[in-house]
């Protein structure tokens, strides 16, 4: 096949082109022809098709995501906002932190190990691209029914892929989620978060400036893996019986990833880089068009210079390849020798593939012939934007009307005891150790808290102890019942988790996992979730700094539960003041916040009755803020011996987790105003269980009163069992050993 050059394209306007197969709509193809004033070459068509895919262009979500900017709270903390590789937040003392969560859902279903591994690799490269040293990762994961055979295929592969990549990269895994729900059976969600640290002056952006500066591609050689992965894999649902479009999922090399981190930080630190971009989805097409359009507007690339792993690749394939562990840097000619020397020291291949121009065009040559000549903005930023129709689903009212009030509740001490134990051993609440023990949480020596803590806490400055806390959360069942409230509840829980460790919540990242945007029901769920999250962020003063949208998580007509995963970052001046969750040997056990009879979407309704209906627990952002203020102040003033957020499984599960973490029991009693079942298992929000030393109790209660946070003494820490003084006429108790055996048996029994 002869090369499809720009000159040939101009000469042969009527050659039929496979735009539909590449995922472009007829009107999108027409627009490309308009932009270029001719038909695109096959290389140009490849570039536009990947860059205008849903995954890269956010064409269905853009109009909604604008709210994160329009409603952004005023804050001085945001140093770099949405639109860059990752947002950057000021955490004080000249330190900046960048963090972002992304999805790798579809590849992880096709090939769990490599899909999950390269998900970690991709988010880590986003963080390096900002000039930051990656310091920790987290993984919010969602799978289908735990006993389903396909879950046994997907989960162990995903977990070992995350471990295999992250452990080899030397990044501690400090938390995340493992959630089971049938709605994810054909569409598991594999999200990956990375947090990185830098000094303010070290922030780098993706732009190609300075005419004559060189474009350097470094890292792994380019191969045939992941070609079309972005546009095809991420934009097609897994229809049963449909045509198979399964190009190779990318394959990760964490060893090269580690070298890339060290090498990149060294060239950045030596001041050798004018602009930098990682190669992720859409590979070179994305990196060159984004660098060029964010800079002086022109770039000339000689594609034959790209080092190849497979010499048979065509020009189009090289442009689309998603081979992992590659970066693109803009380097001044005066510094190129030094740049290449550092790469050589790390055994990293680095090649000059082009230069920055002032032509306003991205020009790509292939063995002396021009195969791409486009305005780079039209590729990178001016893709199509859709106002997808959306409407509240017809079934939403019925779902909300199906309240859980009719479900049989335990009425005896024995039944209540059994229910609490059953929940403690249920797949969504049982110990996560089987998963998290496959991740290194110690490497780099700055992990202060990791799973099962409320939030992961990382020390940033060894001298002062300044550090950050991170939590991710989402309850898809809540979001299904009410996507506006569901997004706010996800945010509220992550916010509360961060505050529970003693950190002040500062900024937000999100990974919005939904079904097909072409379904008005799904699009309504999406728009409601974005609106809910933006409103909540505005009210509590934490901006969304960046994130990711993953659509098409559905099988046939059935979409996953709407799953807006929210990550909250908080800051702590001294991590030595962090509040642990382990039940101490003594102290007063207090419940903060108000408990209502709220079971819509609850873990109890899910586990015991397989029921999903009604409304999720009420959101009170004002109460969340007040609670957070008490938890942060309590940590700073050293009043708290322990604290733990109350969420899925209610007060009972919070106590169980504290008791297991501390290997110490507690004796509690049901407040007079509450039914024992409601007290133990309701999922009312804005609550936490805390333990304070008896001599601090007065000061702590005063702190709660000052912030108008309801506080109730529910018991005393210590002993060998978790005991409830009286429930429906008799005491109930569980020994620590019994709780541990129940909690720790579940996941190994399912997956070991």
């Amino acid at each position: 096949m002869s090369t499809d050059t720009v000159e040939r394209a101009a000469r042969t306007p009527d050659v039929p082109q496979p735009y539909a197969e590449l995922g472009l709509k007829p009107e999108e193809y027409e627009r490309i022809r308009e932009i270029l004033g001719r038909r695109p070459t096959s290389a140009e068509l490849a570039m536009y098709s990947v860059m205008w895919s849903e995954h890269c262009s956010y064409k269905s979500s853009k109009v909604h995501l604008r709210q994160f900017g329009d409603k952004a709270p005023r804050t001085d903390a945001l140093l770099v906002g949405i639109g860059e590789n990752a947002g950057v937040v000021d955490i004080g003392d000249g330190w900046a932190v960048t963090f972002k969560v992304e999805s790798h859902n579809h590849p992880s279903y096709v090939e769990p190990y490599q899909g999950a591994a390269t998900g970690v690799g991709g988010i880590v490269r986003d963080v390096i691209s900002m000039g930051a040293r990656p310091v920790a990762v987290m993984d919010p994961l969602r799978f289908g029914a735990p006993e389903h055979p396909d879950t046994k295929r997907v989960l162990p592969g995903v977990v070992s892929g995350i471990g295999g990549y992250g452990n080899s990269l030397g990044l501690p895994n400090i938390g995340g989620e493992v959630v089971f729900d049938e709605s994810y059976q054909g569409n598991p969600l594999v999200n990956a978060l990375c947090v990185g640290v830098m000094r303010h002056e070290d922030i780098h952006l993706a732009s190609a400036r300075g005419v004559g500066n060189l474009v350097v591609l470094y890292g792994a050689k380019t191969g045939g893996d992941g070609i079309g992965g972005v546009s095809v894999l991420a934009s097609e649902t897994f229809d049963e019986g449909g045509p198979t479009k399964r190009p190779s999922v990318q394959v990760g090399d964490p060893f090269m990833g580690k070298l890339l981190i060290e090498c990149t930080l060294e060239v950045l630190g030596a001041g050798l880089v004018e602009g930098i971009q990682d190669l992720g989805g859409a590979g070179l097409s994305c990196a060159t068009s984004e660098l060029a359009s964010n800079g002086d507007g022109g770039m000339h690339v000689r594609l034959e210079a790209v080092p190849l792993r497979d010499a048979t690749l065509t020009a189009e394939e090289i442009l689309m390849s998603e081979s992992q562990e590659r970066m693109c840097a803009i380097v001044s000619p005066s510094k190129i020798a030094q740049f290449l020397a550092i790469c050589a020291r790390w055994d990293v291949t680095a090649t000059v593939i082009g230069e920055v121009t002032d032509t306003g065009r991205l020009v790509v040559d292939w063995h002396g012939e021009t195969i791409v000549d486009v305005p780079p903005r039209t590729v990178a930023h001016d893709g199509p934007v859709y106002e997808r129709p959306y409407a509240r689903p017809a079934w939403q009212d019925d779902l909300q009307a199906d309240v859980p009030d009719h479900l049989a509740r335990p009425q005896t001490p024995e039944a209540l005891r059994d229910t609490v134990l059953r929940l403690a051993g249920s797949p969504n609440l049982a110990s996560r150790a089987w998963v998290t023990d496959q991740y290194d949480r110690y490497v780099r020596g700055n992990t202060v808290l990791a799973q099962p803590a409320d939030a992961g806490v990382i020390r940033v400055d060894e001298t002062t102890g300044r550090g950050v806390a991170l939590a991710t959360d989402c309850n898809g069942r809540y979001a299904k019942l009410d996507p506006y409230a569901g997004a706010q509840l996800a945010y509220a829980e992550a916010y509360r988790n961060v505050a529970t460790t003693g950190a002040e919540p500062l900024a937000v990242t999100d990974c919005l996992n939904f079904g097909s945007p072409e379904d008005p029901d799904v699009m309504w769920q999406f728009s409601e979730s974005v609106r809910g999250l933006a409103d909540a962020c505005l009210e509590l003063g934490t901006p969304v700094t960046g994130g990711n949208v993953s659509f098409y998580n559905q099988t046939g007509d059935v979409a996953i539960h709407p799953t807006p995963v929210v990550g909250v970052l908080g800051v702590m001046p001294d991590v030595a003041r962090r509040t642990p969750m382990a039940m101490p040997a003594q102290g007063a056990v207090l419940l903060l916040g108000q408990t209502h009879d709220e079971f819509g979407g609850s873990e109890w309704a899910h586990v015991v009755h397989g029921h999903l209906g009604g409304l999720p627990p009420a959101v009170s952002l004002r109460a969340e803020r007040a609670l957070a203020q008490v938890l942060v102040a309590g940590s700073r003033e050293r009043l708290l011996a322990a604290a733990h957020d109350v969420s899925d499984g209610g007060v009972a599960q919070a106590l169980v987790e504290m008791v297991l973490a501390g290997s110490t029991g507690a004796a509690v009693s049901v407040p007079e105003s509450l039914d024992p079942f409601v007290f133990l298992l309701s999922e009312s929000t804005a609550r936490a269980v805390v333990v304070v030393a008896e001599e601090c109790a007065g000061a702590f209660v005063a702190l709660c009163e000052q912030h108008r946070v309801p506080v109730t003494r529910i018991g005393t820490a210590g002993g060998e069992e978790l005991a409830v003084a009286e429930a429906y006429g008799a005491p109930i108790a569980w020994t620590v050993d019994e709780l541990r055996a129940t909690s720790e048996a579940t996941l190994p029994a399912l997956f070991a």
Partner: protein
Amino acid sequence: MRIGVVTFPGSLDDVDAARAVRIAGGEPVQLWHGEGELRDVDAVILPGGFSYGDYLRAGAIARFAPVMEPLLAAAAEGLPVLGICNGFQVLTEAHLLPGSMIKNDHRRFVCKDQRLRVENVRTSWTSAYTAGQEIVVPLKNQDGQYVADASTLERLEGEGRVVFRYVAGNPNGSRNDIAGVCNERGNVVGLMPHPEHAVDALTGPGTDGLGFFASVLTGLVAA
């Protein structure tokens, strides 16, 4: 006291080992795999990680690094050398220590706080402990199952060269619950668990690992 910490491509816990040396009162010195010199250090640590990705066999490529040549010579002269995890694997590949590590018997990576018994306190790296003392340090690896032939095991046991043993459960199927061994002279010690992650109660399970670094620093002062 200058304690060298070698960085191979793919070393991960080199910063942790250097920090542990500093906390114990020593001066950490970075040694680069590609340079065949030891920079006048008084002891050397080969840290944990996945040198060269461990794609061939853990430690198999690192043993050929230029830094290993002077290290082998100095170890033969009595230089204290500690191999942690991947460093232990490098030491066995280099035949400074007997035996080998294969995949964990359960085939998974495992990260946990592990209880160990210190069996031999006459080595350069364990003199600060008391014989039979139990310590808790993190264990984290994929290829941690210590194996050796029967006669090697018998000799190691007979000569008291099993330095650490797993207690309260064998986490990876290691023969004789062996977590770490030493050479005949006791200056070269290798183990799978990570004492450098147990030097600060804020970031580790405790400070039980400090004894390794205190041992070598004390020994060097005495010498």
